[in-house]
């Protein structure tokens, strides 16, 4: 990995920020969860780019899968409305 990956890292971080803003501003809660999943996916990629494969794997499993599933379950158990 002699290739300089820093620009790529910056790109993914930018995407993460965009997703984070979207999570907070999307009206529909379920959509927010989906965006949150994407956010986790981007962060996992970012970690992978920086060489943190273990963290990336865990973040993908936890953020993208478990937390998202928890959120979705919770939304179905509660309500879906916007703020």
């Amino acid at each position, binding site marked *: 990995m002699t290739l300089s990956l820093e620009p790529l890292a910056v790109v993914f971080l930018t995407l993460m920020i965009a997703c984070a*803003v979207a*999570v907070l501003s999307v009206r529909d809660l379920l959509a927010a969860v989906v965006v949150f999943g994407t956010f986790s996916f981007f962060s996992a990629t970012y970690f992978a780019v920086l060489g943190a494969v273990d963290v990336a794997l865990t973040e993908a499993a936890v953020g993208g899968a478990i937390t998202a599933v928890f959120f979705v379950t919770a939304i179905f158990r*509660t309500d879906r409305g916007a703020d």
Partner: protein
Amino acid sequence: MGEMAELLSIGTVQYLQAAALLLVGLYGIVARRHLLRKLMAMNILQVAVIVFFIALSAKSGATVPVVVDEAGGIDVAAYVNPLPHALMLTAIVVSVSTTGVALALLIRIRRRYGTLSETALLDKLRE
């Protein structure tokens, strides 16, 4: 302006982005009205901290910290710093645990008060 350029150099900009992420999360916790949304913002905040630590572990030109070939001795510069990774695995687990407990609380709140919107909740509590 020299300082500004330095701040925007590729080596520092990731810190700034992590800070931005942190602020977005914090803002969400404070400003969003729906409790689930607050919880998501809390998760974003925690990811921001994780990003910060992982950024600390990076080394230019180094690779994932899995030793493949020991024959010629190990070059420290060849592998990224594994310590923050280990720490952040713990942090991720902590964050998912917190989220789980928070969701359990939310479900109970919803069951009792029928809403998760902070404004509506405050109204009900005031009764």
